[in-house]
């Protein structure tokens, strides 16, 4: 076993010796000050009698399993410091997010690396330990000599998370700043993974995450969260932030979420929203949830009947945000009535001058806004649809239902 490693369970209770080798006390806790250095243990809290003393990292000459030897013994009494992340108090047994493994885990132990620094030795946080091996260490900690524990644990598989992938959970916004907790790790995750994580957290932590991450990421993640949790998250947020997030969502999803909220809250949020998305969402909210109107979204691309392939490509270029999921273009007559649907892929097979009308599907399948959910899923199945246009009583195009909406509906059953 490499000696440059030290587990927190080993650090705890380690004797601290002064220059003459007399025992000053034992380690009770260790603190990191993330604003100064995100990985180095900044202070050791030493218990001697009733009082706690603070040992600064630069006062330490050496650290080993046998104890901590100091090179400077002028210690100050411990007083609580808002900028400290204390291992026992704030980290051990608490939940954190493993951004690489994309899940919520519970801290069982912490692994440090002993590093030389300016003629002394300091500890760097290396890993957060979870799993059986760390549990074994915790259970026998203090009951067996440290070296025995090291030898005995070898047979148990280790399970650790690199410190740089750990996202600490802290609901208090003031303390988040003081502890320098960023959301970069969470914002880089796939929204669906973030949604899974959020579902595993407590309401207070969910709120903290959505309060702080970028509204666009928040909107993507919120769309993937289970509906009753969605509602409780939005209700817990400040109206302004909630409106920012809802604005970023696709109108159909925004309407679905708002429909889950109490009337009053959803009105407040709508009030705060910008004009354009507000109008669309308002309209969508009018429809029954399990009708075509309630299922559809209003993000689609429609062109006039006599448009050409070149026109279509021009329009697509200005709607880049839709490209990820778009698969069908719709054709409208001069009265905005639906007359055709063109599968996107067909554009690539024809030159720019080809009229879109000639590329439209042979049988146009559409549904009225009042159509029942069951009937809609049937249509998708029967005609193998990817997108289904929804029309009002004048046959004007009002929205589109896409296959991913259908998958969600079927999964809910």
């Amino acid at each position, binding site marked *: 076993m490499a000696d440059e490693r030290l587990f927190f369970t080993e650090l705890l209770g380690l004797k601290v010796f002064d220059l003459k080798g007399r025992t000053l006390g034992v380690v009770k806790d260790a603190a990191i000050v993330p604003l100064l250095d995100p990985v180095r243990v900044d202070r050791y809290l030493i218990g001697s009698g009733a009082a706690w003393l603070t040992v600064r990292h630069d006062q330490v000459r050496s650290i080993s399993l046998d104890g901590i030897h100091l090179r400077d013994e002028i210690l100050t009494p411990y007083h609580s410091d808002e900028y400290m992340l204390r291992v026992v108090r704030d980290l051990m*047994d608490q939940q954190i997010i493993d951004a690489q493994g994309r899940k919520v885990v*519970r801290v*069982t132990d912490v692994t440090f690396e002993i590093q030389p620094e300016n003629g002394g030795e300091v500890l760097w946080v290396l890993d957060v330990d*979870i799993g059986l091996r760390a549990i074994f260490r915790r259970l026998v900690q203090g009951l067996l000599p440290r070296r025995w524990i090291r030898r005995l644990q070898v047979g148990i598989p280790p399970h650790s998370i690199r410190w740089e992938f750990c996202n600490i959970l802290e609901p208090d916004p003031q303390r988040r700043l003081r502890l320098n907790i960023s959301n970069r790790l969470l914002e880089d995750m796939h929204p669906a993974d973030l949604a899974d994580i959020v579902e595993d957290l407590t309401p207070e932590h969910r709120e903290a995450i959505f309060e702080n991450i970028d509204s666009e990421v928040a909107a993507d993640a919120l769309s993937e969260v289970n509906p009753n*949790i969605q509602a409780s998250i939005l209700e817990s947020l400040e109206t302004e932030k909630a409106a920012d997030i809802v604005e970023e969502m696709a109108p159909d999803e925004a309407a679905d979420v708002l429909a889950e909220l109490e009337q009053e809250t959803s009105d407040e949020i709508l009030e705060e929203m910008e004009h354009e998305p507000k109008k669309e969402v308002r309209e969508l909210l009018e429809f029954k949830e399990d009708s075509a109107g309630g299922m559809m979204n209003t993000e689609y691309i429609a062109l006039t009947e006599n448009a050409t392939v070149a026109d279509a490509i021009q329009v697509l270029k200005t709607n880049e945000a839709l490209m990820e999921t778009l698969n069908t273009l719709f054709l409208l007559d001069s009265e905005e009535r639906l007359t055709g649907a063109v599968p996107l892929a067909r554009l690539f097979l024809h030159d720019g001058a080809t009229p879109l009308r000639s590329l439209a599907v042979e049988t146009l399948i559409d549904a009225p806004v009042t159509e029942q959910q069951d009937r809609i899923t049937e249509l998708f199945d029967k005609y193998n649809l990817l997108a289904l246009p929804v029309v009002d009583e004048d046959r004007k195009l009002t929205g589109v239902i896409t296959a991913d909406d259908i998958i969600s509906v079927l999964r809910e059953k």
Partner: protein
Amino acid sequence: MWKRFRYHIAIFFAVIGPGFITAMVDNDAGGILTYSQAGAKYGYLPLWTLLPITLLLIVTQEMCSRMGAVTGKGLSDLIREEFGLRTTFIVMAVLVLANLTNMIADFAGIAGSLEIFNIPRWVSVPLGAAIVWLLVVKGTYASVEKIFLFACLVYIAYIVSAILVKPDWKEAAIYSVRPVLMLQGAYIYMLIGMVGTSIAPWMQFYLQAAVVEKGVTAKEYKESRIEVIVGCIAMSVIAFFIIVACAGTIYEVAPRDLQVPADAAAGLRPFGNYAYLLFAAGLFNASLFAACILPLSTAYSVCEGLGFESGVNHRFREAPIFYWLFTGLIVVGGGVVMWPRFPLVKMILFSQVINGVLLPIVLIFMTLLINKKKLMHEWTNSRFYNFISWAAVALMIGLTMALVALSIQDMMKS
């Protein structure tokens, strides 16, 4: 007609939530047999325990659902965060032990109910174990839960039976409020078993987790509370009628210990030839229902407390400890019952006593947690609640020590 029936079913399920489900699962094989035995051996005398038991049941269940709603965390999570890993490990060991005995009881219930139809246990138990394992792992459990719950209506048979046997209602009423204490090993054994079966350690973990899962918040909590209280009362009403029915049909003829589960079917004698059928159906349903919920709830609690991956939506490789625990409880619980001379009733009763003995350990941590301002803010326990739960802790420890003392005394004599 059919439409009205469907309407009633809809109402039935609308009022059902975590509290009601917990209460119904609580009347599993252990519950039915413990109450039957109490009535068969002591007549109306044990009825007085139901009032304090109901009160304590409401208090503990209310505490759990309140903790779940306010903190959004499970009981094992809270124990881990507030008391550290070693304490969590001990409490989890207690939970696993208690639930292993419950699993044994429920498989004994499956074996006992099917033995009435001459199905040997080497057929019924492995079959039951396989059904439970598949229902849970394949995720079909949720759709079957309603069938289990609906089948709980068979308990109404006990109410009908208790009325038909024309018990001495005056005596029953008097004994319902008159406590009788006897310093007798068998009597104390029964008392601990009755508390243990009504207020089992697993229920606290299960109910709190269910409240969290349902996403009940502190604001909406009031509605949940009503449901929890209704569930507790329903459970006690059933217990009351089981005792009265068995007192009327068995005790009145000749007070005795039940030997095989089928003996308890006598409690439904007014149904004539159908008594065995009703009893077997009730016991089988209750046992299978509990056998599905118990290992799952145990595995979730333990894995969450100790920080292992959990959930049936994970593959075996991702959550090995979860699956091993869950499978282990089923295999060991069923395996023990397979032993041909395994005394079914005795072990069922014993398992409930173990639950009663272990209950104070869980109750102590619950009460400590719920009084933490940091966690519960303005929702900490009232003085009355604290009094009830500490009194229950003291009482259960006292009863356990009395039982131990009396057993040692007996051993010395013989």
